């Protein structure tokens, strides 16, 4: 395990669950469909906003409305904290305080800056589309001038980052193992339902092959 890059990325509680290597952080960011972006407002209070992110190499991209004060603050270089969480399993112990979850979370700290270079903007827009569902980025129409007037994209380096991962069965105390209580784990998955075409879909357009079939797990990398 690599070392925590900074004090605030150090996992203090259950340090054995802390991961600081790039690969683990990247994997959690890629698998989490959404993240929460937090910043501190002008009154010094925490603010939080769920959004969609994407990663290209060591850079995290976020997008938002130019009209939103949140994104104005973030694009202006406010210190942000981005957290993404994947819940893998419920962990049911014999005792209520030992209940837990098998989860993977990644936290990235830093300052974001607005992306202005055209090739990077299009690459980021494609990456965000691909993050949700690979294949879609080659199908959907690229943003036009009006889109760029309304939406901004910011990037931040994935440098000051850490992951926290719990796996495995519940960890009851030895004296509780004899209790007549079921214990174990329950996996949770995000399952796709049946795709429904838009009512105004042009006739003759087939459902794309990259869409998962109904009852399939929604694909994550």
């Amino acid at each position, binding site marked *: 395990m690599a070392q925590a890059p900074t004090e605030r990325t150090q996992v203090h509680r259950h340090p054995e669950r802390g991961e600081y290597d790039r690969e683990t952080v990247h994997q959690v960011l890629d698998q989490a469909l959404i993240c929460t972006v937090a910043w501190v407002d002008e009154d010094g209070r925490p603010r939080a906003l769920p959004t969609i992110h994407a990663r290209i190499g060591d850079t995290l991209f976020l997008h938002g409305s130019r009209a939103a004060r949140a994104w104005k603050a973030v694009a202006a270089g406010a210190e942000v904290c981005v957290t993404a969480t994947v819940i893998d*399993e419920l962990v*049911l112990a014999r005792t209520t305080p030992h209940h837990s979850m098998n989860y993977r979370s990644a936290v990235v700290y830093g300052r974001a800056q607005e992306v202005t270079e055209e090739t990077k903007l299009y690459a980021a827009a494609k990456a965000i589309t691909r993050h949700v569902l690979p294949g*879609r980025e080659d199908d959907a129409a690229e943003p036009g001038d009006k889109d760029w007037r309304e*939406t901004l994209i910011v990037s931040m380096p994935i440098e000051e980052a850490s992951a926290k991962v719990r796996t495995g069965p519940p960890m009851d105390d030895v004296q509780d193992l004899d209790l007549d209580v079921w214990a174990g784990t329950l996996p949770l998955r*995000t399952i796709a339902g049946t795709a429904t075409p838009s009512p105004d879909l042009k006739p003759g357009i087939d459902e794309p092959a990259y*869409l998962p079939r109904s009852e399939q797990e929604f694909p994550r990398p």
Partner: protein
Amino acid sequence: MTDAPTARTRVRRLPELGAYDRETIDPILDEAVYCHLAWVGGDGDPRVIPTIHVRIGDTLYVHGSAASSTLRAIKTGLPVAIAVTIVDGIQFARSMFEHSMSYRTVIVYGKAEEVTDAAELERLFDAITDHVAPGRAADARRPNADELRQTTFVKVPLTEASAKISAGFPDDAEADLDLDVWAGVMPLTLTPGEPLSDPDLKPGIATPDYVTNWRRPADPS
């Protein structure tokens, strides 16, 4: 629709998706398995951690280890922002930036206050266990005095909260309706897999129905 209780809860981007009534907010808090808790560190920078919450009446509770740096900080009365997000599906638009998710999100702002009453803490252990897996609290052993001391619960009143809900089909610009790109929606549901018994499980204990039949939203109790 009721009005936003404060400026920071007002949904500014797509205000027609915002809601401020508890009939909308409460079921989202109850259905979301986990939350993202944001606060401001001693250095003035934002922090976000994933944790488990439970709502009882007009109050939202979150908990963590008494040794957790987050819980030790916020229990002194720090302002927090708690975000929960449920992804209900993907809205595939013809153009990249009209893509959206079908989602339900709630953000709660307030000051965290530590729960110190022993009877209330015992009740909260039951409630937070049943938030994740309804029916579980009656089955598992309840915390002893040591375990009660090792966990901190804080509460935040649901007085400053807002919901944002997106549903339905994507909203492409008129000019894009003629593109040869599939558009439509795909629902996503959080679904349990097969429960896995603890390798140390005492023989003869069957997997309880509330585990096998786990679902979100939970059946009303």
